[in-house]
């Protein structure tokens, strides 16, 4: 399944041009279609992948993150891990450094 090339669409609310999808903590090339839909053209999603949407500012600042979802059989299931939930929406000043490793 992960060998096939296609486009994933993420549906939600309040998306903007600065919404970026993260898969397992890695920023993806995200195309903003409208405020309820984001498209991923170059990404591969496997079962068990953790998916999250973040609002990003300049210099790789993550202003705010959504809840984390797990991809299972074409569905997104909310991850109810207490550790990530408590900090939800309060990560405005987490500088994102992983990007540079690429």
């Amino acid at each position, binding site marked *: 399944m992960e060998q096939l090339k*296609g486009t994933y669409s993420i549906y939600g609310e309040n998306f903007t041009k600065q919404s970026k999808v993260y898969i397992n903590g890695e920023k993806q090339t995200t195309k903003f279609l409208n405020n309820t839909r984001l498209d991923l053209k170059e990404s591969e999603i496997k079962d068990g992948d953790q998916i999250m949407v973040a*609002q*990003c500012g*300049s210099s790789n600042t993550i202003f705010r993150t959504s809840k984390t979802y797990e991809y299972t059989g074409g569905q997104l299931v909310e991850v109810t891990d207490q550790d990530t939930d408590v900090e939800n929406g309060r990560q*405005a*000043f987490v500088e994102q450094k992983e990007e540079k490793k690429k």
Partner: protein
Amino acid sequence: MKRIHIKKPDVKGFFTKVKNLKPEDIKRHYQEKKARRQRILEERRNSKFAKKMQPVYKWMNRFSLVLHYLLACVLNFLIEVISRHSFFEAWSYMTGTPLVFLFNAFLIFATFMIVYLFRRRVFVRILLCVFWLFLGACNGYLLLKRVTPFNAQDLKVLSDALELTSNYFNGFEIVMLTIGIVAVVLWVISMWRRGGQYTGKMHRIIAVIAVVASGFAYVGLTDVAIDKRVISNYFGNIAFAYEDYGFPYCFAASLFNTGINQPAGYSEETMAEINKDGCLNVSETSRSKEELPNIMFVQLESYFDPTEVEWLRFSEDPIPNLRKLYADYSSGYFKVPSVGAGTANTEFEVLTGMNMRFFGPGEYPYKTYVKTTPLESAASALSSLGYGAEALHNNGGNFYSRAKVYNNMGFDHYTSKEFMNILKTTPKGWATDDILVPNIMESLDTTDGTDFVCTISVQGHGDYPTEPTLENPEINVTGVEDEGKRNAWEYYVNEVHEMDKFVGQLIDAIEQRGEPTVLVFYGDHLPTLGLEAKDLKGKYLYNTNYVIWDNIGLEKKDGNIAAYQIMAEVFDRLDIHTGTIFNYHQQRRQTKNYLADLELLQYDIMYGKQYVYKDSGAPITEGHMVMGGKGCDDHQCCGAAERNL
């Protein structure tokens, strides 16, 4: 003269050569190249010309200090030519205020002491010349685009600036700039190899002492110059300061002189006297919870009433909504700390009640202080009375580091461009202000009860294109002879007209909502359109306009207000007394030593021992802000990930 022969390229030979290439050949090639280079340099050194010049060089080395000073004068003059975009203006600056000129040259001269630390003196001199001229060029370029000259804060906001590169430069300019920089770098590198080297005995310890001594000499000379009123250490207008006191001094001042110096007489006793019986620490109001209105401040980017310009003519009034507000509600001139730029400083004065004049010349306290340190503000002051504190800005959340600044000021939420579904932009790429209306309304919903909402608009941001940009401008502007200038004014006036529409929409939306509300509109500074004091009806470059709209029947009371006083004034009219600085304004305005004590208070809170907080505790010790205004839980709910093949 040699004839030019065009040889037929020996393609076949080239390939056989490459095929039979051995590592030793390559090595030998480079060795030969190196030897050849050494030989050429040697020849040059021993050439007739060099031999003839040797006594001259010797003489020049002996009198290098004097020559350095002359070079410094030349550099200083070039820098001013670039900064002023005019040889003649630089000339009249030099001849008009020779002491200022020589003082600035001394600063450049002082940096040339470094030369004696190195053998490659010519190279180091070139490097210093390039360094100073580069700073001058930066200043010259920035002054083409805005009125605030190049200062130390620009180095700190470099990250913002890089992002805005495409707004300031076009593609062609970027290419030319890159070529120019690469060429200079290559030339400097070549001079590292070719430049003359000092062959005499080195006195490095003496050189180090000289560097330190010249540094101290500069500081001492600065004090003398300020004392003798040759220069000033307060810049009423950073742009005029650069013109009057010269680029090198002003740039250095902006680099080394930031924050508030301890005022004379600062002590625990003085502060106790100013804060008698904790009168500044109160947080109270006679209004009941239901009677407290929402308090909203809307800062309009580069807004002022364009009809204030004496010679402009309009096909119709560009600000019908605001004009009506001026007639019906409290309004007047709004005295701001900046002209043509410096949005964040007007904002700082409004939100904190602090006066910019006590800070370093050309300083942005947002960058030098609030970005990293909590500071009480209208947000924290009103929070203590149960208000929610919301901030909005339809440009990048990191611009002027607002995401960090608002957090440190005690805001609850900050909705920046990244959280707005922006569909419309101006022809210059800034978000239009109408997007703010629904977002302001949403921000009122985020917290229960009354809210303090601070909105920073961006639509009117410069620069204003001199080529025709709007296809069918709603307002036609006349009265400007130069067609380019007229285009710029027409563009600006139509953006102001759009702001006026936004003002109307916002008031409609608030009236529909029906909550008791006080709404303040003001401009942050005049636009960058080359205005002079004589062009304006008010004859003053630091005046924009404000109006205080309300739906709770406040009395109309016109008058001119300074940016650092307006928050206290609005609170006073609502019988709200909260926030150390705002209480101070309410109690001490128009009393003796008002400004001197304000300086002490600002120093105490920001850089001193915080004696005013001694008994009451600091009003804010850390931020708690969340980005984005919408409800915390349902923001960006991902419903499903679907795969379209």
